[in-house]
């Protein structure tokens, strides 16, 4: 604890030198026929004044936080006024209507990037995480409040996390950090420990991935977009909570001049995760007088987790050059991330705990982003390149058993491992390289074409002094015993995409037509090969195509309807094809998963003059998946990935946000989905499972939230924000069942109700926000994954300081 406070003090030390308490309001002024308006007058509450340049752009700097009236006027156009809330840099795009100058004020809504994403032709739930930054939340907590997303964790902070998106799960849902597949970060950067503080937003792509983002995602993906600001700022936070949990974040940007800036994002997490689990089985050895074991029995106890510590740290520094003759934007960044986990249990809770197994990963990444426009911005070039070097360690080697009281048992562990079927002390050493180039060309004002090429290579090697071995020339004088980990495995993937975007009918109708080509080539060692005389390399390659179409029609300014279809696929991962040189055996004939994804939705959004606001999203989805990859037991010790039954999914989603008065916001989301087995790949199957629900996935879940801000509390300008979130997950069975009402109740995960609350007190003049969060207020039993209990009621206190 003391060292964290020290760390906090050191981290806060430079704040006074770096502090600036102002923001920038900028934007573009256009006429209602789309032409930019130069030399328009822009007034910010009479105190700040600006004029648009020849591109219609304006920029008002050094604006203190607060709410202002922004007025724009120009001869021959109606004067426009709107309220602008400045607590960050604000971009406002304004459209002036031709006509008399003295008409009534018109409210113009500036679209955030989040809202722009939400209004795209393809279905994207863009989660604006800024609203959560005063709270101690991770990405996983925010995702739980999105439609169609089920987040399952096997424990507390840092524990194994599984995302289910519109019924698809596991590798079928790809995760990206800043547009790059997160697996390139080698396990050292994961969704389960990234605080919202370092993110701008999280884009949830449902069914379709744009060609300049996606790879081989089967059912969509999540892209975590880190904060990118063009103005000076510094923001830091520290939170302390139950289970000895400490989280520290810091982020900032500094502009050396108009063209060069530097930024940093960093976080540190620590937790013991020592929460109590109720009524779990616990093994007890009954000893004879001589100390030997006569028998073992199982008791039920309330036990505190004792080997679940999680630590992680992350720092990303960037230097950016912008608005130069040779680059609109060039960003060079370096990232370092490290995590280590103790492991407390296997797939589910048994009478034995895991007392020694640990994993660890470290990664360093260098990245370059380049953007440049040509031909009066008709041609836009984007390039992202990434180099990563990661190491990972897996330690599961012991001669001991532990029970849930933390006692070491008398009986020795003859297997030598707690999680795996074999002991392992693997050190992995992975290098990755990825390039993404995309070109957008505006053929006309209404038609553009985007082509994108994504290529990545990964090389994996390592060593395991106690793992499996491959024997060459067995029984001969030339016999050679090799650790297969030391022989590099290589994976290369290439995704080419082309996209045609068009608008018609005065931009009311938007379409996107796209094609993707997927190419995959992997080489590794067949570690189970016997009688080999040379290194038994196996190569797996495949080439496939995907395509799709999206259409959006703007029915009124407030409402649009959109639909999309994609034929897509997902290549098997390295582990799925080649195994893990331990418990997973290879399957070289594994085929890609394939899916036909269809979405249909309508969105209504309206801002009223009294600052009230409403938005409603209704959507449905269909998924028709073939050759789904899943793991099955392979003998008593091992497992193997196979192509399994076809699955059909249909679902309905609703999300809404309502702000009846300025200080109150209500929101909610609702998902109902039916995910059924439509075909079995087992030729001898009786077909009895056809029509049955895929087990272990909830059908219905929703959440409700309310947020109210009390202004001028205790002191002028200070505010108190109170928020409440309720999450509901309906019961579901971990087995394949026809009817939950007649299902075996022992294996039905009961309905779950999670209530969280947060109170934040903001002192704008001191740039401070204090927050108290309470999770699981009613101390309900929460099970995310295979009946593994999640924490009961727990608390955290967070301080945010921003400049």
């Amino acid at each position, binding site marked *: 604890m003391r060292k964290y406070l020290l760390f906090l003090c050191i981290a806060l030390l430079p704040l006074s030198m770096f502090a600036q308490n102002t923001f920038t309001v900028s934007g573009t002024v256009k006429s209602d026929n789309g032409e930019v308006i130069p030399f328009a007058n822009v007034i910010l509450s009479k105190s700040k004044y600006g004029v648009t340049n020849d591109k219609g752009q304006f920029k008002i700097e050094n604006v203190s936080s607060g709410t202002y009236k922004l007025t724009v006027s120009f001869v021959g156009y109606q004067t426009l006024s709107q309220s602008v809330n400045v607590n960050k840099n604000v971009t406002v795009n304004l459209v002036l209507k031709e006509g008399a100058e003295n008409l009534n004020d018109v409210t113009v809504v500036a679209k955030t990037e989040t809202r722009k994403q939400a209004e795209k032709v393809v279905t994207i739930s863009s989660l604006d995480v800024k609203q959560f930054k005063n709270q101690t939340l991770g990405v996983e907590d925010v995702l739980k409040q999105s439609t169609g997303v089920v987040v399952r964790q096997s424990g507390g902070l840092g524990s194994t996390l599984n995302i289910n998106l519109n019924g698809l799960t596991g590798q079928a849902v790809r995760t990206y950090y800043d547009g790059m597949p997160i697996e390139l970060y080698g396990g050292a950067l994961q969704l389960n420990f990234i605080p919202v503080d370092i993110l701008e937003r999280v884009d949830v792509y449902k069914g379709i991935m744009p060609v300049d983002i996606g790879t081989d995602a089967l059912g969509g993906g999540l892209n975590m977009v880190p904060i990118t600001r063009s103005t000076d700022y510094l923001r830091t936070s520290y939170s302390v909570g139950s289970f000895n949990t400490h989280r520290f974040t810091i982020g900032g940007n500094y502009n050396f001049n108009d063209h060069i800036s530097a930024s940093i994002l960093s976080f540190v997490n620590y937790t013991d995760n020592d929460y109590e689990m109720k009524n779990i089985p616990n*093994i007890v050895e009954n000893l004879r007088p001589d100390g030997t074991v006569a028998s*073992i029995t199982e008791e039920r106890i309330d036990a505190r987790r004792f080997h679940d510590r999680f630590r992680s740290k992350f720092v990303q520094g960037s230097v950016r050059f912008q608005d130069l003759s040779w680059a609109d934007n060039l960003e060079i960044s370096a990232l370092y991330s490290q995590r280590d986990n103790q492991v407390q249990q296997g797939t589910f809770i*048994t009478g*034995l705990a895991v007392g020694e197994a640990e994993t660890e990963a470290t990664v360093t990444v260098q990245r370059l982003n380049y953007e440049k426009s040509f031909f009066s911005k008709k041609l836009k070039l984007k390039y992202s390149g990434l180099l990563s070097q990661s190491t990972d360690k897996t330690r599961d080697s012991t001669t001991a058993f532990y029970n849930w009281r933390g006692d070491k048992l008398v009986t020795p562990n003859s297997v030598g491992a707690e999680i795996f079927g074999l002991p392992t002390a693997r050190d992995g050493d992975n290098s990755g390289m990825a390039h993404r180039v995309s070109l957008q060309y505006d053929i006309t004002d209404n038609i553009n074409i985007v082509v994108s090429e994504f290529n990545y290579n990964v090389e994996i090697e390592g060593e395991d002094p106690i793992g499996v071995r491959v024997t060459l020339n067995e029984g001969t004088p030339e016999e050679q015993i090799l650790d297969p980990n030391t022989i590099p495995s290589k994976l290369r993937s290439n995704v080419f995409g082309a996209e045609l975007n068009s608008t018609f009918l005065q931009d009311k109708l938007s379409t996107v037509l796209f094609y993707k080509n997927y190419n995959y080539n992997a080489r590794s060692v067949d570690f189970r090969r016997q009688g080999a005389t040379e290194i038994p390399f196996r190569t797996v390659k495949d080439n496939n195509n995907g395509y799709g179409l999206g259409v959006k029609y703007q029915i009124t300014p407030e409402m649009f309807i959109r639909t999309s279809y994609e034929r897509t696929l997902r290549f098997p991962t390295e582990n799925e094809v080649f195994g893990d040189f331990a418990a997973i055996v290879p399957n070289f004939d594994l085929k890609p998963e394939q899916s036909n994804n269809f979405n249909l939705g309508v969105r209504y959004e309206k801002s009223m003059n009294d600052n009230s606001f409403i938005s409603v999203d209704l959507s449905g989805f269909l998924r028709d998946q073939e050759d789904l990859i899943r793991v099955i037991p392979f003998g008593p010790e091992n497992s193997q990935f196979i192509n399994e039954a076809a699955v059909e999914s249909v679902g309905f989603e609703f999300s809404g946000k309502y702000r009846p008065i300025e200080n109150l916001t209500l929101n909610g989301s609702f998902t109902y989905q039916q995910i059924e087995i439509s075909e079995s790949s087992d030729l001898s199957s*009786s077909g*009895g499972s056809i029509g049955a629900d895929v*087990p272990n996935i909830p059908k219905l879940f929703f959440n409700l939230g309310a947020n109210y801000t009390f202004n001028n509390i205790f002191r002028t300008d200070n505010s108190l924000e109170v928020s409440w979130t309720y999450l509901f997950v309906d019961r579901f069975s971990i087995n394949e069942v026809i009817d939950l009402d007649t299902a075996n109740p022992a294996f*039905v995960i*009961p309905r779950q109700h999670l209530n969280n609350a947060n109170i934040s007190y903001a002192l704008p003049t001191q740039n401070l926000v204090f927050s108290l969060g309470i999770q699981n207020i009613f101390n309900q039993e929460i099970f995310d994954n295979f009946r593994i209990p999640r924490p009961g009621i727990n608390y955290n206190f967070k301080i945010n300081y921003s400049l």
Partner: protein
Amino acid sequence: MIFNSIKKISSVIASMAICVLWIACDDGLNETGILGDSIKTSGFVVIGTTASNSALVKYYEELPSGTIDISNGTDFPRFFPNSIMDHAMFLSRPDESPGFSKYVVGEDENFYEVGTLPTLNQGSFRIDVRDSNVGVFQDRATSDNITIFDPTTLQITGSIDMTDAFVPDDIGQRYQRFIFRGDDVFAPIRGNVNGEAFASVIFHQGNLASQEFVGEVIRNGNGFSDINTVNDFGQNFIDPSGDLYLADAGNYNGGQVWARVNRVPAGSNQIDPNYIFEPARVLNPANIFLPTFSQFKIMPNGKAIAKVNAQTPQAAIEIVLSVGGNLANLSPTQIQQIFGILFTAETAFWCELDLQSLSVTPIMGIPPVGVFSGGGNAFFHGNDVFIPVATQTENAFYKYNPLTGVAEKAFDVEGADISLVLNLANNN
């Protein structure tokens, strides 16, 4: 101003709170019945496997006929009984916890766990019961021990220290099953951690009365080719003369050590070297690739039944030809592929085996099946043997009368792939 705002939102929040409380009051759980004083002592338990590898289990008071649907049976993550004794089933814990369970069928036809035998190793999978007083299991965490328990009370009554038993390369052993002959218990072994099969079939023998290791029963192979053992349900391996028959599945990997029925004469602790009965080779001497069989069981009339492979499926032959026609070149993955083919390729027949004349007679009226296809063991009821047929077109049991030699379909199963049917009235 603040109070006005509070007033405005109070009704909204109150509505939400009522909604939350209403939902929170219903936990969605079904009531679980309480086991009465009595249990079902007869009837049939039909067990099926779903596409998701979970189990559906349903009780039938009478022998099923026509078409039965088990889709509304009781679901478990797994349900693979190894023994029935006194109408109770003994099996690995259905909730996938380490150890074993004793299950009964209540008068309400529901399934009740009446006790458990926890183990340290989650992969402990074999429990067998001899009679009302003696059963054994292995906790693979203490692989040198065979634990003895009382099946009635589930109390541990002793153990046999098998440390002195021979295991190739001196690695730990796991016991694939336990076969009883009086106070003797025989247990075929594989490697405990990696599941190695050995070049000989090795049975460890212990004595339940003295709780001591006795020795090994070994069928010698050719010294380098693995011979596989089997782990089916139940017992029924002793003929009316007291001879014990121990089946192995032979070598899959080119050693030309064929699957064999081995005889241990009554009173002996060794395999009779002069008794050589290789059913698949008898059925088709030309089947040189995979002449194997499975589900061996001795019928009450002293003859045996088994699923015997009559030929090697073409798809498997092509895999063998892809490695130069030499079985020894097959990789473990290719062997696994061949297993998969043998699960589905309908090249095997249910056969009656005459253990004395060493003859093999396909049972007419029963369609061909995969030699490793599902459905589990046959079960006995009255004078009939009920034989599982799980193929691409059938999911059924056939009734075979050994006295008349007539076989006909008994019932079809819908709702899940059949994995086992048990007659609660029978022990093992």
